[in-house]
């Protein structure tokens, strides 16, 4: 089970972002996406399950509010492309849902909650490769906690959070966990 999909773990940690701060970070990212993609033309948002999906939907809703633009939004499950499959028992699959029209020729913005080793994003790039040929791929994350193990960086970051390897970062979202917050819990505190 990956740490990010355990809904109850981490409630005892230290809160680093409150609901207001999460809202402001997403608002800023939505504006940045519009800026960087010249008005959001040809953009589609793909959330990585579990918590990337509601984040992508929130971003799409924001962009709709600001520009009256209906940004297609979907989800991209990366489980079958992970490089650590053999280190865990087989996981249940998340959902892949592409907006009608697919990804060909679009600017795909991948959305995830936490950017850590970068391995999930690598898996997402592989998964995307089998679905079509986007014009460009960008990455938006709510929290960048460092410790990259691959040459991957995010284009849009909600908050840079310096952490130690042993700490665990949990993003809680209303849609999944009934509350909004980002928690960091103790040294070696595994769920």
């Amino acid at each position: 089970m990956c740490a990010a999909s355990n809904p109850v773990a981490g409630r005892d940690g230290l809160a680093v972002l409150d609901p207001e701060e999460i809202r402001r970070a997403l608002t800023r990212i939505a504006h940045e996406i519009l800026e960087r993609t010249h008005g959001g033309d040809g953009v589609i948002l793909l959330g990585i399950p579990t918590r990337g999906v509601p984040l992508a939907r929130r971003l799409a809703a924001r962009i709709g509010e600001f520009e009256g633009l209906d940004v297609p939004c979907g989800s991209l499950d990366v489980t079958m492309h992970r490089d650590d499959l053999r280190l865990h028992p087989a996981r249940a699959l998340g959902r892949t849902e592409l907006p009608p029209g697919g990804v060909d020729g679009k600017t795909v913005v991948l959305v995830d909650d936490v950017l850590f080793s970068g391995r999930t994003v690598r898996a997402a790039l592989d998964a995307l490769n089998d679905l079509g040929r986007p014009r460009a791929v960008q990455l938006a994350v709510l929290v960048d906690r460092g410790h990259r193990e691959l040459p991957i960086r995010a284009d849009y970051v909600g908050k840079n959070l310096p952490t130690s390897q042993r700490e665990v970062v949990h993003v809680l979202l209303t849609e999944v966990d009934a509350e909004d917050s980002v928690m960091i819990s103790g040294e070696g505190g595994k769920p």
Partner: protein
Amino acid sequence: MKRHLISAADLSRGDAVLILDTAEELASLADRPIKKLPTLRGRTVVNLFYEDSTRTRISFEAAAKRLSADVINFSAKGSSVAKGESLKDTALTLEAMGADAVIIRHGASGAAHRLAGWVQGSVLNAGDGTHEHPTQALLDAFTIRRRLMASRGGLGGIRVSSPRVSTVGAGGARGAGLDGLRVTIVGDVLHSRVARSNVLLLSTLGAEVTLAAPPTLLPLAVGSWPCAVSYDLDSELPKSDVVMMLRVQQERMTAAYFPSVREYSRRYGLDAARMARLPGHAIVMHPGPMNRGVEIAAEVADSVRSTIVEQVANGVTTRMAVLYLLLGGTEFPATGVAQ
């Protein structure tokens, strides 16, 4: 989940629903330009077939290949089995070649169970004698759930409950079992591994199963199975959501089980007149290969209620799900934090 899939009874309700949900995700692969996933790269799957088979072998082969596993096909004809090699020695040979999974079909009931004691990898039973055929039951359950449960919506599944996230697409039945559905399995239950696996799995998933067959074609111990028994097909039809016709397995029949094929067909065959007695939403299934004109009339097999072709397509996705869940991970505890 256990390491092997020998019997449908090995699966808890949770395991079975997980397999069906996984298959539901994998079904979307068929619409994609690249119908392949890298998940089982470098793993070897052996198809060990001692009995003839078209759809099961091809279906397992397609499933393994779509997950990027290497597939070795072995059929008893033209191999050392013809020279008298035993199942155990064949198994040890496969073991030495590093098979991660062995898919076995054998004429002897219990062959898969014996094999599981001899090899390190996972054993998947693709039909052993008149015992079991669990992946057929899984694909049947998947077909039933897609056809009949999707419209009812997923019943309290694992999906996130917020209306903003739960967009119900093709996988509307996610997390659901087959609760409350009435399934009638008709015909040669005695020789049918499909019937046994289906009774076990469908009842695990909450369906009410009734066997409709002549007394001579029911096994002695049927009283201990989790299902009802009827000798009268016509009285069962109006209350069935699913009718599953079984093939009359003449190659396994060593005695006279019914007076004539014509009489069997008249009493237990599904023709257009009988099909008309089914409720409007009911579906007709057959595991194949069919004897048209014996247990199922041609106009029934080709009607819109028939799911026979769908079952074959669903076979590949369901078997992919099983292969992924058995071979995709490891039993060892997690060593790192994945985010």
